[in-house]
């Protein structure tokens, strides 16, 4: 088994990923976009602001992905997470997983999001009203 290719980008840049391009070995590509909704805890908002402890966030993401890849071997994963203000409708997080088969891609994707929300040092710090 070759190691999974991991790419992580934590930055204030707008997330606008191109359509995934599958390799000849890829059978399944699963993506997830977490986008900002117009209401947060029942209140109407214009956006949210994110803060990251960037080097640690990257290294924890990498640890989580590597741990998940053992039971759910995938070919590659790209994670992009924004920092700073993110407006309603924009993408705060984008994940793209390539695998031979869909079960592994889904498991890695869902497992990563669960762990992200427990252990990756990124915070919603402010509501943009």
């Amino acid at each position, binding site marked *: 088994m070759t190691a999974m290719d991991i790419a992580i980008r934590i930055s204030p840049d707008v997330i606008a990923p191109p359509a995934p391009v599958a390799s000849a070995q890829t059978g399944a590509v699963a993506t997830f976009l*977490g986008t900002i909704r117009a209401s947060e805890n029942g209140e109407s908002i214009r956006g949210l602001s*994110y*803060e*990251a*402890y960037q*080097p*640690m*966030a990257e*290294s924890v993401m990498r640890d989580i992905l590597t741990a998940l890849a053992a039971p759910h071997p995938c070919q590659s994963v790209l994670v992009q*997470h924004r920092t700073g203000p993110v407006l309603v409708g924009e993408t*705060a*997080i984008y994940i793209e997983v390539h695998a031979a088969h869909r079960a592994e891609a889904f498991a890695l994707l869902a497992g990563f*999001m669960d762990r*992200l*929300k*427990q*252990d*990756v*040092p*990124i*915070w*919603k*710090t402010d509501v943009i009203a």
Partner: protein
Amino acid sequence: MTVLYFAQARRVAGRAEETIAADAPLTVDQLWAELLNRHPDLAALRATSRLACNQQFAQTDTLIHPGDEVAIIPPVSGG
């Protein structure tokens, strides 16, 4: 050692970073005692916050050495 404050911890401490002089390693409890001494309002965050040392979550028995980078990690909310 350098202490980094994030999110609510940054607001409560009123700063993003500070330096703590130490001649010898500190336990996690000793470091928290020092931080609470400087910023008593951090007490409200202690139960829910974790401490990272050199970008890894500290364990109960982690020793923090002079020169280490420490961070106060309130409950995360990314994604």
